[in-house]
């Protein structure tokens, strides 16, 4: 498959953090491409650079070196405003700590990306409720985080990540704060969304979680040491099309 057709294309990405005199290389020449419709798990020990990689893919951070493109469009040299719009339109984030607003009801949380996308209020609310239905929380639309269980909160966060129909959903240890059973429920939800065609990148250090993915990338010390790559993703791709 041609490189230009990839959803995400990274060439030789490095990220160096400067802390006073010392330099920490969080990423050290990572090249990676992700196709539309893939289900990728990134595994590796703590501090191996997984989150750094995800932040760059999600336009939250910029690489020190290397070329990064989405839909063949290079991300370097974009203004803060353009990056914000890319985060808003192309990426859905799911965080380990859910990151919900403390006092807003579920539908308001889910509506948030649409607010920044200038979607009209009525439409936004309707789409927020649709996204909540998609994650099985339609009846909890008016509940605030403190009235929801951890698993339910994470599903609200997933609905929020989905609501603006992103090209790519990024999840950084999404089950890390959940018990095993609810973690499995959340993973089942991810799988369902993948079946429906969503491109998924999940960071995890849970081997069981990783095994469900079609493609597993292993990182150590800022480099990719193994990538089950291509075949599994392609196989799925073939099946889907």
């Amino acid at each position, binding site marked *: 498959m041609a490189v230009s057709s990839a959803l995400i294309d990274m060439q030789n990405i490095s990220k160096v953090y400067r802390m006073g005199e010392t330099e920490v290389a969080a990423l050290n020449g990572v090249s990676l491409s992700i196709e539309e419709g893939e289900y990728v798990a990134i595994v590796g020990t703590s501090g191996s650079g997984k989150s750094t990689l995800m932040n760059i893919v*999600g336009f*939250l951070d910029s690489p020190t070196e290397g070329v990064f493109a989405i839909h063949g469009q290079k991300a370097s040299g974009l203004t803060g405003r353009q990056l*914000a719009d890319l*985060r*808003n339109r192309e990426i859905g984030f799911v965080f380990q700590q859910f*990151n919900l607003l403390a006092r807003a009801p579920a539908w308001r949380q889910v509506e948030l*990306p649409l*607010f920044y996308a200038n979607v009209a209020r009525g439409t936004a609310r309707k789409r927020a409720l649709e996204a909540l239905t998609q994650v099985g929380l339609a009846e909890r639309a008016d509940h605030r985080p403190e009235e929801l269980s951890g698993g339910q909160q994470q599903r609200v966060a997933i609905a929020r990540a989905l609501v603006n129909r992103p090209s790519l959903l990024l999840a950084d240890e999404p089950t890390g704060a959940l018990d095993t059973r609810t973690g499995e429920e959340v993973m089942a939800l991810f799988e369902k969304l993948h079946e429906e065609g969503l491109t998924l990148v999940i960071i995890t250090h849970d081997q069981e979680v990783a095994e469900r993915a079609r493609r597993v990338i292993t990182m150590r010390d800022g480099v990719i040491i193994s990538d089950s790559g291509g075949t599994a993703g392609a196989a799925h791709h073939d099946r889907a099309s």
Partner: protein
Amino acid sequence: MKLVRYFPVAVDSITANKMRAGLTMLGIIIGVAAVLSILGVGRGASANILDEVASQGTTRLTISPSTESEGEGAGAPVQTLTMGDVKALSDPAFHPDVVEVVPQFAGNIQLVAGSNNKQTRVTGTTADYAGVHGLEMAEGRFLTEEEIARMSNVIVIGTAVATDLFERTQVVGESVRINGEPFTIVGVLEESGNAGFGSNDDSGFIPIGVAHGRIFNVPRYRGEYIVTSASANAVSEERVEAAELQIEQTLRLRRGLGAEDDNDFTISTQASLLDTIGAVTSTLTLLLSSIAAISLVVGGIGIMNIMLVSVTERTKEIGLRKALGAHTSDVLLQFLIESLVLTLLGGLIGIAVSYGLALLVQRIPNFPIDILIGVDALILAVGVSAGCGLIFGLYPAMRATRLDPIEALRYE
């Protein structure tokens, strides 16, 4: 419009921390209420005084003496306005625009009735005084020309004098003693109901000749009794200035003042009095309002303080919003509108408080002034509190926009 959609966000975050929002707004509430009340009191007081002055006629002129040292180092200054001046001014040939020239000699003296006595301001004057000063009678009548001419021992008193001496106001025909001499009360003045400016409730009026010759030990100047002041009426409101000039000319002539000599008397008109009162009250109001405005600034700094705390507390929220696609301007507007809503709310509560105060004051019987809150003061209050919100909210809001999204998300 997108701007409007930040308001529910602001209201959410304010109601999420009601206690803190209330305390933050307190500075603005107190500031706005204080400024409005003081402006209102100032306006009420000056309206009151102006009413009072206007009710006493706008054609009146008052002539008061200045003092002059007679000769080289001759000692005590002497008053130079005399009955001779009053007689001269009463000549219509030279003063066609002046009518009813009224001399006054006033002093404080004790009135005695039975076992009661009262220190009273007693003015010796003529019959025209009532007309020129717009006095209204509650009982009886004012002094007559005949009584003035015959120097009768008659007196007209204010209600407070009547009640203090007799415990009632229907006292026409009763007698009071001044310096041991009996005076027959011929009239009682209408109560002015105003303890302040221009009240005659504590006054007494007797014929000018009696005051000069028998009651007060009045000195003479060039053979004529001096007066403490004289009043006159102009024929019409339009002729007040002309009347003033005619009076000035006669008095300068009588004193032999040269072109470069200053007047040794002053002529004040109601118009000039109104100007003076207006200037004094507005200066006073301005002064007090500036003091009150300081509390607004303090309130504004309180807002800034709380907004800074709020930005720090919500670092993670700001990071999240940026991750979800918020522009720098979105974050800026969110915090700016939050502080705007906070101060506007404070301003509105402050307005309500000052209105409450105004209503309360109105209910106090005989309270001398009303608090008058004008639309301009309201606009000022709303404008100033909104301005406070924007100015003092700007810095915290800019701090929020500068946060790096990943750093902010990682913040605990």
